Structures are given as C-alpha cells and as structure tokens.
C-alpha cells in the first residue's frame, strides 16, 4: 500500500490546472505569457509534446484564441490561459466560439485591473467581464477555483462541460489560487470521468453541422473527417451558412441559450458548508471562499450560527441555491475582491428582503478571515 505522503505532491494552482487539462484530454494550447498565468503556458510547453499534443506561443492573445478555435474545430480539445489584459483581447474570438459552438477552455487568472493594473496582485475584477465581455446575447459557463485540488478538478469539469454543451468555458482563478502551493493527492485516471463531444453517426451526405436534436447540442464532426462543415461568425442555418430568415435566426438564438438552461442542474455547482442550521451566511467564491471558511469556523466557536455558500459556478448564476440560503438566513455577507460584481447577482435573486452586506477589498490584497468575522459578529 502506498503511504499518503508518497502519493501527495506539492503543486501550485497553475500547475494543477495543467494536470487537470491533460487528464481531461487537452492536447492543444495556444497562448501568450502573462503574470500571473505564465506557469500554465510554461508547464504545458513541456508536457504537451510528451503526450503528442501541440503547444504554440502566439504573437498575442487575439491570435491565441483564434488558434484555440481552429484546433478545437479539428477535433482536438484546446485551451488557453491568460490574465485580465489578455482576456480583453480574447473577447472578440470568444464570441466567435460562442456562436460557432466551439468547445474550448479559457483560464483567466485574475490580477488587479483595469488595464495593466497590478500584475502581481490578486483580484476578482473580471467576474462580470467573464459573463458579458464579448458582445451579443450569448450563453457562457464561468467556473471559479479556490484551491489547488479545485484547480485540478474544476479544469476537468470545464473541459467536460465544454465538450458536452459545445460552449466555451471560462475558469476564473486569481493570483492567490494560482500561486499557492499545497501538497495534494490527485485522483488517478480511473477515478476521473472524461466527456468527449459526440461525433455524427449519420453518413456524411446527411450531416447537418448545426442540426437540432433533443439535446440541443449538434453532433460535431472534426474538420478533415470527411464531413462537410461550414463555420461562420454570422448567424447561420442548420448547414452552417449565414441566414437572414427570422424563423431560423430565432430558432438558432433560442437553442444556444436553451442547451445551457436545460443543463442547469449539472452546470450550477455550489458547495454548502455548515449551512444546515445557519442563520447568517457568507456567499463567496475563489480564494476569498477560503477566508470565509476560516471566518465561519471562528464564528461557530463564538456561538454564531454561520454557514458558507461557496459558488463554484458563477455563471449561469446558481440562483436556486442562492435563493434557498437567502430564504433561510437573516443576513448574507458577500465578500469580494471587487466592488460587488457577484453581490449584484445575489441582490437580483433576493426575493425575501434578506439583508445583504457587501464587503469589498480592492487594494490588491486577499480579504482576511478577520474582516469577514467582524461582519458575522456585528450582524
């Protein structure tokens, strides 16, 4: 029997993202280095060639996102990793991936912004940008990581969701999560579930690249596999060619959204900690969720019935879970390293007049447990 210590490895959040990506079957990475995401590129440039994958450092983030889309269309699971300034540049092609329904994973390790901002400091400033950064009324999935083991499992989940729903998935990490090293035992290959996109089973002459089915997710033929395929950023018909037909447009737009909303149960992931009898709760995500966990434990020691709702999925916003804790608790505290980007979502869901308290830190420092505890004691 292997002892616990030998199966555990010391890994950084960024390194765990790489392990997760490789375990999920990622075999293509295109990117441009940027602090605090560079370790992801660095490690993948070594590891991808070892498993027969491809690593390309592109001239910038616009091209990186383009290359990721191209590789995915060719049937290869693809990803990129960046931080705020690079994420800005990726937005145009990200929209293309949404409309062309190209599975791909984008890791945004958040640092202080706007602009070049605070390159080496953590932040959660890109939350709403991850949801709405590219134009048009698009559905997208955004997941948040808070620990090293999270970085591994959430990256796998991101690829699985992306493949299943043919949608770009954004992983929001931050400088603290990315650079924290922890000794972790990663699950072996047989403990990991990997989802692959479904290839068409019809003969090539019957294939409609954007044909509807009961899943709302068209079967996806890899380019070069013998199926005719047309890809465009214009709104298209079932064959993938541009259309101006209002009926076809409406059908397409609604399907894009409905394929995601049908999967809410699986997509919207949260973690409830000590919530059973909680009267006050903290709603948090990312590295701040760890501070919150410490704070609720301390509050419990002081006799306060506190709980934590940790959001893993930020978008589509897990409204059902949030609604239920807002009904249960007198007060909800929402600490964030921004001016309240998830707090506004929580407020939107709040149907019961539950008191919502914002706590915002935007000085480039991680929110401490003491800061959150102060609110828990006060309310």
């Amino acid at each position, binding site marked *: 029997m292997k*002892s*616990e*210590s*030998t199966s*555990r*490895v*010391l890994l950084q959040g960024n390194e765990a993202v790489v392990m997760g990506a490789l375990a999920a079957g990622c075999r293509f990475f295109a990117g441009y280095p940027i*602090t605090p995401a560079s370790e992801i590129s660095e490690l993948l440039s070594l590891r991808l060639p070892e498993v027969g994958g491809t690593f390309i450092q592109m001239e910038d983030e616009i091209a990186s996102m383009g290359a990721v889309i191209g590789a995915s269309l060719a049937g290869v699971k693809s990803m990129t990793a960046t931080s705020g300034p690079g994420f800005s540049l990726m937005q145009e092609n990200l929209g293309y991936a949404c409309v062309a329904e190209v599975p791909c994973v984008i890791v945004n390790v958040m640092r202080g912004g706007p602009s070049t901002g605070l*390159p*080496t*400091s953590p932040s959660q400033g890109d939350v709403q940008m991850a949801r709405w950064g590219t134009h048009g009324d698009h559905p997208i999935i955004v997941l948040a990581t808070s*620990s090293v083991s999270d970085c591994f499992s959430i990256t796998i989940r991101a690829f699985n969701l992306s493949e299943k729903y043919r949608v770009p998935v954004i992983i929001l990490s931050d400088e*603290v999560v990315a*650079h*924290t*090293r*922890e*000794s972790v035992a990663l699950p072996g290959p047989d403990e990991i579930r990997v989802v692959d996109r479904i290839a068409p089973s019809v003969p090539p002459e019957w294939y409609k690249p954007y044909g509807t089915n009961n899943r709302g997710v068209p079967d996806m033929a890899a380019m070069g596999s013998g199926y005719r395929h047309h890809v465009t950023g214009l709104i298209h018909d079932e064959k993938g060619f541009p259309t101006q037909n209002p009926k076809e447009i409406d059908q397409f737009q609604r399907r894009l959204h409905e394929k995601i909303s049908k999967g809410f149960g699986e997509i919207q992931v949260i973690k409830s900690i000590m919530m059973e009898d909680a009267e006050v709760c903290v709603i948090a995500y990312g*590295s701040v969720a*760890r*501070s919150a*966990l*410490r704070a609720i*434990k*301390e509050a419990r*020691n002081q006799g306060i019935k506190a709980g934590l709702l940790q959001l893993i999925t930020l978008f589509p916003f897990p409204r059902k879970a949030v609604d239920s804790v807002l009904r249960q608790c007198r007060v909800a505290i929402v600490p964030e390293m921004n001016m309240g980007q998830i707090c506004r979502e929580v407020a939107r869901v709040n149907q019961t007049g539950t008191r919502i308290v914002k706590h915002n830190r935007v000085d480039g420092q*991680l929110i*401490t*447990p*003491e800061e959150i*505890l102060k609110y828990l004691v006060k309310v």
Partner: protein
Amino acid sequence: MKNDQRYEIRFSGSGGQGIITAAVVMADAVGRQNNRYVCQTQSYGPEARGGKSKAEVVISDSPIDYPKAMSIDLLLAMTQAACDAYFFDIRPEGLLVVDTDLVEQVPTSRAVTIPFTRIARELTGKELVANMVALGAVGLLSGQVELAGLETALMKRVPKGTEKMNSLALQAGIDEAGKIDLSLLPRSVVSDWADD
C-alpha cells in the same frame, strides 16, 4: 484567530535573495510527511530583482482553510526593510530570525541572528546560497520538518551541478542554528521583561 494547530512561517527579504525558493523547499519537505498539511503562498512586486519579497508556509495537522499567515510563529528577515515591515505580524511567543549583517537593528531580544550571507560566501564562495543556509536554520528552529526530508526536497529542486553547494549551505544553517539555545531567549517578542 488561531485556535487549531497551525504553525506559520514567513520568509522575507528582497527580490533575488531566493526567498520564495526557500519557502517552496520547506513546503515540499513538510508535504512529504504523513498527516501534515501545508500551504505555501507568496507575494512579490513586478520587478525581477529588488523590491520586497515574502513567502509564507502554513503547516497544520488538518486541512488548511485560509492559506496565508495570520499570526506568525517564525519570521525570517533577510533585509532590514523586511524586518521592519513584518515584525509586527509575529505573535508574542513567535521567533524572529535575521541575517546578522543585513539586519543591523533588531527590534527584539527574542531574536536569533546568524550571518547567513557571510556563511554562504565563506563556505561556497557564493552569496547565492544564503537562502539555503537560512532554510537550514529555519528548518531546525521551527521544529516542523524532518531535516533529512528538507535535504531530499532541496535536491529535487536545485539546478544540476549545484547540489553540493546547496547541500553544504543547508547543513551549515542547521549546524549554526543547533548552537542556539532558545530557552535562553525571552519568552515574548513584545517585551523582554514580561516574565518578571
């Protein structure tokens, strides 16, 4: 706010002194031990050299929630600026460890001063490994790590060809710290006469 078995170490100095490397090796060594949880974080400025550099290692018998240090058990300061900036984060029974030549004004008597950089220079001809001399001392003084494990973790992370130099430096730090009797120090960093 610290009620469980956390032990918190902060390595501090300026960029280029190998502060983060020392912390990573420490964390790696602790992580190899059974039933020990470890979390290592760091903060640094945008510049490659100079500027303040700090790295933390939190050690516990249970999974670690908040990853950063809250009240420090051991502060290693490799510059005066780092010592001044972080001294007040040490808990009263904590320990300050400084480089004798680089921190000339030590703010407490509950301090261990060892000339890490001088030892590194005299022993190997290179100041570069002062961080490993310091790591050896921190490893011993903290009592949180098996010293053999520290050596193993170090060998895994140093560039080829520098193993001997790094290993010598680590051992020198352990030896130097071994000469120190912590029971002779005052019990609190805050006040030397608190025990009277």
